[in-house]
């Protein structure tokens, strides 16, 4: 594809009609990467705004998340039609999709090689298919354990094994129960920390004086949680 074609493609995409047709084709290709190899990345202004907001921790992020949720909410109805899911299931899948998308955007996994819509639809589609597959193989009732494997990436194998074995002994229900006993301010602070906010950003959001104060408070809250968990 030469520059001339690219420019022509971009001009063509300006019209909603062409835009819709191209997306219709892309979505049905069901391969995010294949769909964009012959076109340069095309992120709409509002999509870029959503991403930028999500990448800024603080009120902008919440705004971005809310915007993202509303932006593609019509996928829910599509899943009801296309995959014959109940509205509740389709809503849950969509919620999972948005949460997963937010995490990936923050991690930097979304490389803008396709539109945000195409990318999110791909995640949504995969989750719908997963749900259907679980249903057909009767795996849905299997108890889902909480895993910390995602957090162990930076360990070497021996350390990973030790931590994983110890984590398997964690009583997750008790831990979550204790989270509700550490007090509101501690809980809010720790939730922001787990959500990827830096101490500086937490300070700005929760109106702490400095990031150092946040760090001290955060570690104290963690200590408190540990104390409560150990006393059970």
């Amino acid at each position, binding site marked *: 594809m030469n520059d001339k074609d690219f420019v022509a493609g971009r001009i063509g995409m300006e019209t909603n009609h062409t835009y819709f047709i191209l997306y219709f084709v892309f979505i049905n290709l069901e391969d995010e990467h294949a769909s964009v190899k012959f076109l340069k990345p095309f992120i709409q202004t509002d999509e870029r705004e959503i991403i930028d907001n999500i990448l800024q921790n603080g009120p902008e992020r919440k705004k971005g998340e809310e915007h993202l949720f509303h932006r593609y909410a019509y996928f829910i109805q599509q899943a009801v039609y296309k995959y014959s899911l109940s509205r509740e299931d389709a809503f849950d899948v969509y919620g999972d999709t948005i949460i997963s998308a937010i995490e990936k955007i923050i991690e930097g996994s979304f490389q803008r090689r396709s539109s945000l819509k195409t990318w999110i639809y791909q995640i949504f589609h995969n989750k719908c298919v997963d749900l259907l597959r679980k249903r057909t193989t009767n795996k849905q009732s299997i108890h889902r354990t*909480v895993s*910390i494997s995602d957090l162990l990436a930076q360990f070497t194998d021996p350390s990973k094994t030790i931590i994983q074995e110890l984590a398997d002994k964690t009583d997750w229900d008790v831990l979550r129960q204790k989270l509700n006993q550490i007090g509101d301010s501690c809980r809010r602070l720790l939730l922001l920390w787990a959500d990827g906010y830096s101490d500086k950003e937490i300070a700005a959001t929760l109106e702490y004086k400095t990031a150092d104060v946040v760090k001290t408070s955060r570690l104290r809250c963690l200590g408190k949680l540990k104390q409560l968990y150990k006393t059970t």
Partner: protein
Amino acid sequence: MEDNLEYIDSYFKGNLHPDQTKQFEQRIANDRNFAEEVTFYLSAKQALKKEIITEKKRWFKELAEQNSSLSRVRQITPVRKLWVYAAAAAVITCIFFAGYILFIKPVSPSQMAKQYIEKKLQRLDVTMGEKDSLQNAKWTYNDGQLEVALEKFKRIVQADSSNFDAKIYSGIVYLRLENYDKALEYFQELEKYTSHYANPATFYHALTLMKRNRPGDKLEAKQLLKQVEQNDLEGKKTAKQWLNKW
């Protein structure tokens, strides 16, 4: 213990020196209490992440209820589906329309005549090597100089009034020049040459009427085509095809 938490926190924030990082991992292997503290740090974070997901899902439900976005979706989706169906219907209609135009729609006699003239009367057969005046006139005709060709054919007729070919070609040139009345004069005259072998005059007479398309022309042309077919005259095959489409 808080000291250890700070140490653990520094490790996960990437604030430790590479040597310290190595020591950190060695301590996990050698100090079970420390390994448990690290595990707790990670488990707490993971439990908090689960809480975040639960809270976000709750928030999404509130957003959906507040903004009724889902009810809007109900309207949007059928419209999008309808668009797809409409596009499919349009394509199918186009296919049927094209099929109708190409295979089913009857062609009018004047269209049949036009197509025949464009296809069959653009060039006249010339005999290579022969350089008589008739061949010369036909070359001129084939070059597209119809008026000049007509003059040449007419001169031949003037010189030899019994020259059947020159007369039939004169009629054809008049037909090409859309001077139908003059063309008809020639063809009607030539129809009387019943003894002439392979006389196409009746066929050309019908063709000219079909092309002229004045009131009554079609009916007369049809009768002439029937004559061509019944009497096995020149142009019988085409006459039969046209009558089938009439």
